[in-house]
């Protein structure tokens, strides 16, 4: 790619401008508060925004979950106590969704429990391979990066429509199959097949996102480490396991965590592609939340909020466990 182009220099100069303006302020703050309190100064803007637009909405959702009616302002809503949680959690047999009051909630939960691990493992593996391939000093690298990233730019509706066109009864895939003299198949009308394709389609649509993150991570590995490995005649695989992977670990954690969270939240593409069907075979947890809370009048914000808070609770426990585990492994 040659040396640093000129526009990078200009961009750099523009970027240093705010520093010149903000610097006296920050130096003053540092004198005033001492170095120990500086991290809070750095955190403050983000923290304020998070509290305003993430924490406060969640708090409003908690209010929703304990109140009924389809009114928006919590003050207009009537208190119903734990009714929404009761509806969601009452089951005769927790292993059999059809014995539950909210049978679809449990079916969706079960589907998500299968969907998420499968999708995450496949997604991270493929994204890792793609990142390594795209990081090699190959000609045409920029073009391939663009190709791998492009699906991320498409809206969920377009992604779903594109794959519907490929997978439907008279779609492109069946067209190719029958052209080759092979039997055709109604891919989206059979539960297992539809489930497998929904994993494939969501990987197709989001893989580029993780590939780019891993690609950036690969760039953080100093080149001379590889030079040293070459001197030692280490094989490619050995270099990967002994050098690349450990140094890449922080970014792999990013990818795994983000991938799990987004996988749990999968909704838009599948809502258009399968609507959760056949039957409820591909209905995931966020679709359930959407169905009760937003899809039909009157909107049941209360039940939707309760379901999302239960989901959030599970994920937060999961993150806490994961964080403490990763700290142990760092200390140990």
């Amino acid at each position, binding site marked *: 790619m040659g040396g640093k182009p000129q526009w990078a220099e200009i961009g750099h100069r523009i970027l*240093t401008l705010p*520093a010149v303006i903000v*610097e006296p302020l920050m130096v003053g703050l*540092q004198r005033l508060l001492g*170095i120990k309190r500086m*991290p*809070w100064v*750095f*955190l403050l*803007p*983000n923290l304020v*925004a998070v509290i*305003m*637009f*993430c*924490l406060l*909405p969640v708090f*409003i*959702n908690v209010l929703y979950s304990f109140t009924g009616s389809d009114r928006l302002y919590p003050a207009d809503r009537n208190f119903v106590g734990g009714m929404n949680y009761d509806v969601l959690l009452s089951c005769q047999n927790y292993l059999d969704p059809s014995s539950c009051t909210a049978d679809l909630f449990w079916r969706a939960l079960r589907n998500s429990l299968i969907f998420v691990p499968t999708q995450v493992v496949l997604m991270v593996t493929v994204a890792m391979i*793609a990142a390594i*391939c795209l990081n090699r000093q*190959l*000609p045409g690298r*920029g073009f391939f990066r*663009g*190709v791998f990233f*492009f699906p991320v*730019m*498409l809206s969920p*509706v*377009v992604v779903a429509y*594109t*794959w519907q066109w490929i997978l439907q009864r008279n*779609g*492109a895939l069946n067209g190719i199959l029958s052209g080759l003299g092979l039997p055709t198949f109604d891919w989206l009308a059979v539960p297992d097949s539809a489930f497998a394709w929904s994993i494939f389609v969501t990987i*197709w649509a989001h*893989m580029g996102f993780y590939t*780019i*993150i891993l690609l*950036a*991570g690969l*760039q*953080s590995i*100093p*080149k*001379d480490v590889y030079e040293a490995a070459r001197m030692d005649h280490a094989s490619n695989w050995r270099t990967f396991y002994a050098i690349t992977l450990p140094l890449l670990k*922080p*970014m792999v954690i990013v990818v795994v*965590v*983000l991938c799990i*969270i987004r996988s*749990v*939240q999968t*909704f838009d593409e599948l809502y258009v592609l399968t609507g959760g069907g056949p039957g409820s075979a591909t209905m995931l947890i*966020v679709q359930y939340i959407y169905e009760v809370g937003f899809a039909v009048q009157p909107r049941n*914000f209360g039940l939707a909020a309760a379901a*999302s808070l239960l989901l*959030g609770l599970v*994920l*937060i426990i999961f993150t806490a466990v994961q964080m403490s585990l990763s700290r142990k492994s760092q200390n140990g």
Partner: protein
Amino acid sequence: MADIAEKQAGAGLSRLFTLRRGHNRFDIADWLTYGFLVLGLLVLFLPVLWVVLSSFKTNANLQEFPPTVLPYAMETVDVAGYDRPLTLFNVKTEDGGEKQLALIRRVGRIAQMVDPADPEAGKLQVNAAEITPVKKLHFAVENYSRLLSGKENTILRYVYNSLFITIVATIITVVMNSMAAFALSKYRFRGSNLALFGILSMLMIPATVIMVPIYLIVSKLGLVGNLWGVILPTVATPTGVFLLRQYMLTIPDELIEAARMDHASEWRIFWRIILPLSTPALAVVAIFSILSRWNDFLLPLLILNKREVYTLQLALTSFQTQYEIHYDLLLSMTTLTALPLAIVFIFLQRYITTGIASTGIK
């Protein structure tokens, strides 16, 4: 093979396959790499290519089975004596040949047709089962003009609004997120774990679920119908903080220690040392911020309730009605709005390659 090719280095294809990192052999790893990339090209790009091609199809053509690769439309012809254009059909003649006739009307199994070359000859009766429509290549640019029509004077306004939101939100996001990430990765202080955990747990909430509370908050702030009402709720992306923090963890602390020895202020350390070294991660955060702000739909839909503050996405979304989605308009809109993103991506992805690699730190 490789040797011959090497001698011709610098010329076209052979150069493509021999210019390799460090060594000149085209080894098994390279074959695998190219194999994977070409597979990726097929699986990832063909559907996208189809989206672009389909954006030039008419609605009828989009619905067709089996689907056509290129856009086609039924050919019509103006025939003297008929006030509307007639559709052309291929008709088998008795001597086994084929002839193009225009359809006047169909009555049961009989098609009434006229020869467009010779309308004087009068109406012909043809078996309706034996006629097939004549198709011609037709790029339905009207999909695009329909999206943009009547809005020429205001389209710049929408582009301005979209650009304003995208650029301002991205700058604020990148600066704020990297400041927070710096604090969370390079300092050990009381409450740092709590702050990190708090930000991380905000990642868990599905966006759909907090949309309504966010509207309530924005409306209380009096920012409904204001571009800032769309910018502010999106700048605190926990994803960005998390990503940047993890990246900054890989930057050696020795650099900071050395700078403190030189009496650099904390801000200077952040701005002059950490930020430049984080360029690849900053580029990733910027790319995703630009992408999500440009494509944002639901939040602007709720908050930007007047045409003068509409974003491009809102202004072009007339493809949905009570009963249907106009896929022709949807696809052309996608193509139209994804184009700027593709350019931005190509521009920004170069930054991903200028990382810590060049600084030579171990």
